[in-house]
């Protein structure tokens, strides 16, 4: 038998969270199949090392990865697989629990480690505890915490065969109306090697943009705390934390962020953490490798200038 990974819909490429899920799948079984929704991703999928077969599902119902028809498709494919996985992205989190319930299986969400085919590690309580859990279900349904698995490369595989799969019946319960997706030239938050995040202290959407100068110099992605998103300084998809995105870049720079446990849950696996905060007692300093006690409105422009000067 084999394991099946559902790819995130992401243009014509296979995104990094999906490639991390392929890496996790490879620790469970050598035979990994990748399911793509739509023809445009099939070629990129076939190039991934570690993918033995690409399944391609085409149809209006999958164009926006609606949960109801996509879950029906996975359930139809399930008999051929011991494990069904997806990245713990917004798409994976929406679809996979639905698949699990239809198969009468308890999902294991956001696995951070594979112990064996039945046993997985996952964080809970905002990353404050790490559990090892063994599933008694005959078939496993999992989402993968991308930050915990080094992604397989985007290219270099021998070229997996691509097979079209028959669409499952669309239950016709929901309809896609529209998407408002931010277009950004910056690297994706969960894939970036460097992330600079701003908090409530940024003070306004306009002020928040001072982070862009530093991000441009470093080729960094921009993130935000919940407080900054709630206040409208940054869009929702930039929220880093327990209930936002989980990132583990080489360098994470937290600017005007206090370091609440919910924020730490999303970034404390970063290799190097820098904190810039004017309060030397701020909890963020307890996890920072380098702490700068300073007013951000002075420090951020200085940082941009210093990066320019020493480049």
């Amino acid at each position, binding site marked *: 038998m084999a394991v099946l990974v559902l790819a995130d819909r992401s243009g014509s490429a296979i995104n990094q969270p999906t490639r991390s899920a392929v890496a996790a799948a490879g620790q469970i079984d050598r035979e990994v199949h990748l399911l793509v929704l739509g023809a445009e991703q099939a070629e990129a999928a076939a190039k991934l090392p570690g993918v033995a077969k690409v399944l391609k599902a085409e149809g209006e119902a999958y164009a926006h990865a609606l949960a109801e028809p996509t879950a029906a498709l996975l359930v139809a494919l399930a008999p051929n697989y011991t494990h069904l996985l997806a990245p713990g992205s917004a798409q994976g989190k*929406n679809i996979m629990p639905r698949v699990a*319930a239809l198969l009468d*299986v308890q999902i294991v969400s956001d696995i951070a480690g594979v112990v064996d085919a039945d*046993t997985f590690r996952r964080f809970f309580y905002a990353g404050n505890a*790490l559990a090892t859990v063994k599933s008694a279900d005959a078939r496993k349904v999992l989402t993968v915490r991308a930050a915990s698995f080094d992604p397989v490369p985007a290219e270099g595989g021998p070229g997996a065969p691509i097979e079209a799969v028959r669409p499952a019946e669309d239950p016709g*319960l929901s309809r896609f*109306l529209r998407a408002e997706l931010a277009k950004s030239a910056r690297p994706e938050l969960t894939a970036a090697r460097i992330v600079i995040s701003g908090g409530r202290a940024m003070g306004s959407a306009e002020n928040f943009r001072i982070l862009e100068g530093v991000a441009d110099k470093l080729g960094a992605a921009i993130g935000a705390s919940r407080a900054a998103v709630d206040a409208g300084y940054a869009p929702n998809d930039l929220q880093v934390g327990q209930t936002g995105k989980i990132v583990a870049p080489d360098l994470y720079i937290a600017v005007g962020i206090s370091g609440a446990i919910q924020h730490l849950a999303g970034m404390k696996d970063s290799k190097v*953490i820098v904190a810039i905060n004017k309060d030397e007692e701020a909890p963020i300093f307890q996890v920072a490798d380098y702490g700068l006690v300073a007013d951000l409105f002075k420090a951020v422009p200085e940082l941009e200038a210093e*990066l320019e000067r020493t480049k």
Partner: protein
Amino acid sequence: MKLLVPVKRVVDYNVKVRVKSDGTGVETANVKMSMNPFDEIAVEEAVRLKEKGIASEIVAVSIGVAAAAEQIRTALAMGADRGILVEHDGALEPLAVAKILKAVVAKEQPQLVILGKQAIDDDMNATGQMLAALLGWPQGTFASRLEIADGKATVTREVDGGLETVELRLPAIVTTDLRLNEPRYASLPNIMKARKKPIETLKPADLGVDPAPRLTVLKVEEPPKRQAGKKVASVQELVDKLRNEAKVI
């Protein structure tokens, strides 16, 4: 239209939990318990729908220990009309909760169930989607905006990259994200009034559900701790350290 709102009793979000030294779980004795924050948002949304005349009745349900009645009381004080407590003392996973909720739905016949997107204790983010699957209903997860009209729910969802709007045929499941609304505080008179609102108590067996878990927790550990590093005196020193010591830029 009737609404059902499941509310979970969880360790308060301000508590930093401790892993038990014997590795069996986390310390929950004598810690502050609250309603899961995403469920407060769900209750608030339900109350707003009632205030707009769209909903006629709100039923709050909790599954758990007897003390979960406190979280139902909080929902009643915020504006829910009555409560159902499904008493169970033991591990509960999203699949079991979804099966119990399915049975409650069969009994109550709501047109909409609003859940939190995620319980902040197990961090599963699964129950709403599982309930939708078991009922064969559509799902609008991670909602930051909800409109109900003409037998349909229009849900704007927080997704990777921005927002997405879907239309669901009712009956449907919605799960809340942080930006859907800001929950109200219950006023003292409403807390008093809530004491008189009815709470029905049931057992999983009354609903024909076996809540036995499917996952066995083999061990719970404290994750590796990060050490606090050093303070740098200037931006110049910071950049120097990042270039020459950490070598990350």
